[in-house]
């Protein structure tokens, strides 16, 4: 098992490194891998003969491609961890942050900020509004789904559906009320894009997301116990209610901050943990660490395709992940259902 784990993690790391390198080298301005390495090393203060002599190449990498790669890596990793945590908390491999309404709450926040021209926070107004919307939606779902001090999974999922429907209606109204230009902006925000990511954005996502992911990793043993059921986890010493609350906040932070800067990118939170679970089994320590890596890898490659598949066009990455993720997810369900004897 440990050797298998080593193989999988090594393979993921190689895939990720390949994706990062390819993503930096390919694009409207082709750059050689040596120049990519040279620029990266110079950024770390190491001068090598590989460093590009052309200022344009160096600027393209340092100002445009590197922050975008870092953002896709981060957003993918955080969304995948959020998905894995959500699945652990619900004890259901089909749960994901979109289900509890984080994404649609964030979409409402972003759309309202765009349409009503909130600009109190300057360029970050949309991101902050999206984050607040996602966070509020999560808290609403969590508090209304509680009864008698407990949260039942079915109630929680149904509440999520209600919140999603409500947010969909508000979003429709905001679209209806908005100008043509803001409508267009909202639609593209919802499609998801990593275009125009700046180092400062990356820093914010990292500052919020990485500590949240670390907390999730620290809870991995408790998530294992939670899969025995809430009562049994309690019998084994887990404070189930506080574990749930911490987890919901972690998921809201992870998803909120990712969605705020990248728009809605679906299925990473489903596909990445699924693949890792199939390769490494359900133990949450390996699952969360693997999802972090697999989610980042997935989105780095997806963004490369989004940037380069159609010449001179930047495809919406959310569209791309759903296009691939939807059918893949369906296949996973069919396959796993036959293998693991249903979801129960």
């Amino acid at each position, binding site marked *: 098992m440990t050797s298998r784990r080593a193989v999988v993690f090594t393979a993921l790391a190689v895939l990720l490194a390949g994706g990062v390198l390819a993503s930096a080298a390919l694009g409207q301005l082709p750059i050689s891998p040596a120049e990519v390495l040279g620029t990266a090393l110079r950024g770390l203060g190491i001068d090598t003969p590989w460093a590009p002599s052309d200022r344009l190449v160096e600027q393209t990498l340092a100002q445009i491609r590197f922050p975008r790669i870092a953002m896709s890596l981060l957003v993918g990793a955080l969304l995948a961890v959020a998905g894995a945590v959500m699945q652990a908390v619900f004890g259901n491999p089909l749960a994901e942050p979109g289900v509890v309404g984080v994404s649609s709450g964030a979409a409402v926040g972003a759309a309202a900020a765009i349409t009503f021209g909130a600009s109190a926070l300057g360029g970050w107004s949309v991101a902050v509004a999206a984050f607040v919307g996602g966070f509020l939606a999560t808290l609403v779902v969590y508090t209304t789904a509680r009864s008698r001090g407990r949260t039942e999974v079915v109630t929680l999922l149904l509440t999520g559906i209600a919140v999603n429907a409500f947010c969909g209606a508000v979003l429709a109204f905001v679209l209806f009320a908005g100008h043509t230009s803001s409508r267009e902006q909202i639609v593209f925000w919802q499609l998801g894009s990593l275009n125009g990511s700046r180092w400062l954005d990356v820093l914010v996502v990292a500052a919020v997301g990485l500590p949240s992911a670390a907390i999730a990793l620290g809870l991995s043993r408790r998530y294992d116990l939670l*899969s025995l059921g809430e*009562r049994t986890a309690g*019998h084994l010493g887990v404070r189930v209610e506080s574990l749930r609350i911490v987890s919901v906040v972690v998921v809201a932070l992870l998803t909120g901050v990712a969605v705020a800067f990248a728009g809605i990118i679906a299925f990473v939170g489903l596909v990445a943990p699924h693949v890792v679970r199939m390769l490494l*089994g359900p133990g949450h320590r390996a699952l969360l660490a693997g999802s972090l890596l697999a989610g980042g890898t997935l989105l780095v490659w997806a963004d490369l395709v989004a940037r380069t598949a159609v010449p001179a066009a930047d495809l919406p990455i959310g569209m791309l992940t759903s296009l691939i993720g939807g059918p893949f997810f369906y296949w996973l369900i069919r396959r796993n259902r036959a293998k693991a004897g249903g979801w129960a």
Partner: protein
Amino acid sequence: MSAIAIRARGVGRTVDGAPIIDGVDIEVRYGRVLALVGPNGAGKSTLLGLLAGDLAPTSGAVELDGRPLTAWSPRELARRRAVLLQSNAVAFSFTARQVVEMGRAPWARTSRADGDERAIRAALAETDVAAFADRAYPTLSGGERARVSLARVLAQDTPVLLLDEPTAALDLRHQEDVLRIGRGLAGAGRAVVVVLHDLSLAGAYADDVAMLDRGRLVAHGGPREVLTAERIEAVYGTPVRVLPDPDTGRPVVLPRRALSA
């Protein structure tokens, strides 16, 4: 008499105005097997939930080792008592061995964690699950799952064990095995509470039998005193014959069946 593990005094639980458990006084002692019996809906599982601390009583109080259950932290409780529930679904494809390993969680980062490997191996052997320890839990049969879950509870290695219908899904041999394990635990000084439907099993293996009927404790004592034909007929509403086991003299409960013409 041996020391008291759990003491419930005047304990009751009302749900939506209907009493599920009503004024039950009961003591669970170390070194003994207590069988909880009663018809469907008598409140056995609810009483077990109250004794385990899962459910808060709406009246009365429950103490473990002389200390109110509410004063124990979940971690402390997990080192003192283990619980086997009736349904034991596992959400993901953990192997049987991984499920049993989870029983050791309360001892993580304590000196007793050194005994993990031994406790797990012993639990797997005792419940006869070693042969399929590496199979995914969701692919096991109902009886196999029940035994793996019991192994998890045994691996937890606590002085008090509360088992809710551990024999329900099991074949004849494994039913007997489970109660022999229970007897062995009691012999080693532990307190064992086991909810049973098979009155003959209760009669054969329990030191004490507590019979519940519609939320009330109607009898509590040795198997021979509690399991009388009159009482069983009154509580269960069906005629029975109670015979002494030819080998042990313990009561065997047989429903009376008339051959229809």
